[in-house]
């Protein structure tokens, strides 16, 4: 009986082309996934009532932004943002103008974010995020005591 012919080469040798193919696919996968990665950002504030009193200082322009329980945003008691308005464009524009005016007059702009006790945290963050967008750095955060 005739035997099946043995394979001439048992080791076909490593093929570089499909290997590069696979490596490229893996690389593409990582590149695409890198765009979807969620990273944590931080918004910096200071606690209120931390003023130096040893030297004479110019009183800064103080602006209070209120965050109500219902999600309404006010700027010195004037409404600037409705509950569903996450971008707060109106507040951003006013903050930008105030920031520029303070820069021109070389005064310090001090913003106090005053939230009601039961105001949602994400609404507070919306306001702080808007201030960060407008390059306002002197921000303090306080919660109004309604009791």
């Amino acid at each position: 009986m005739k035997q099946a012919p043995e394979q001439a080469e048992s080791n076909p040798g490593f093929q570089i082309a499909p290997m590069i193919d696979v490596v490229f696919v893996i690389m593409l996968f990582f590149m695409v996934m890198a765009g979807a990665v969620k990273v944590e950002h931080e918004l910096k504030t200071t606690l209120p009532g931390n003023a130096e009193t040893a030297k004479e200082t110019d009183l800064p322009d103080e602006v209070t932004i209120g965050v109500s329980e219902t999600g309404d945003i006010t700027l010195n008691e004037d409404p600037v943002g409705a509950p569903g308005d996450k971008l707060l464009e109106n507040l951003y524009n006013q903050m930008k103008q105030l920031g520029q005016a303070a820069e021109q007059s070389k005064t310090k702009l001090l913003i106090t974010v005053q939230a009601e006790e039961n105001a949602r945290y994400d609404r507070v963050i919306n306001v702080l995020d808007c201030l960060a967008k407008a390059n306002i750095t002197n921000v303090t955060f306080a919660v109004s005591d309604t009791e």
Partner: protein
Amino acid sequence: MAGGGGGGEGEPEFQVAPMIDVLLVLLIFFMSITSAQVLKVDKNISLPVASNGVKRDDKAAAGLINISWDKTTGQAKYKIDDREIDPNDKEGIAKELSDRKGTNEKYRLLIRADKECHAKYISKALEWGAEAGIDNIAFSGLNKEE
């Protein structure tokens, strides 16, 4: 003089072993960068979006307070790093934060709170910071919507 190590064959054979070596090193590298968390964050917290914030600086010393929100009871739960704390023990928490701060004036309090949490619970964490003499506060948020 003896020649260098030039092989007789022009094309050297591809070695699988060093290739696997390199791939394993890459694998370990990716595994390590994804799991390296200096801060012990609470993964159950659903953070709000703060796309205009600055990227978190993990190198700067910070006391981390995780505030999760229990929807059923409408109460917040506090953790310093991954250890649950009793919010009524104001002195104990302030002392712990103060000890951690030491003499580092740049020490900050990093607050990671759930987006549904109420402001009064955040205020409590700020009080502890004030009691411990920390006035640099940073709020955490995600760069994009979940």
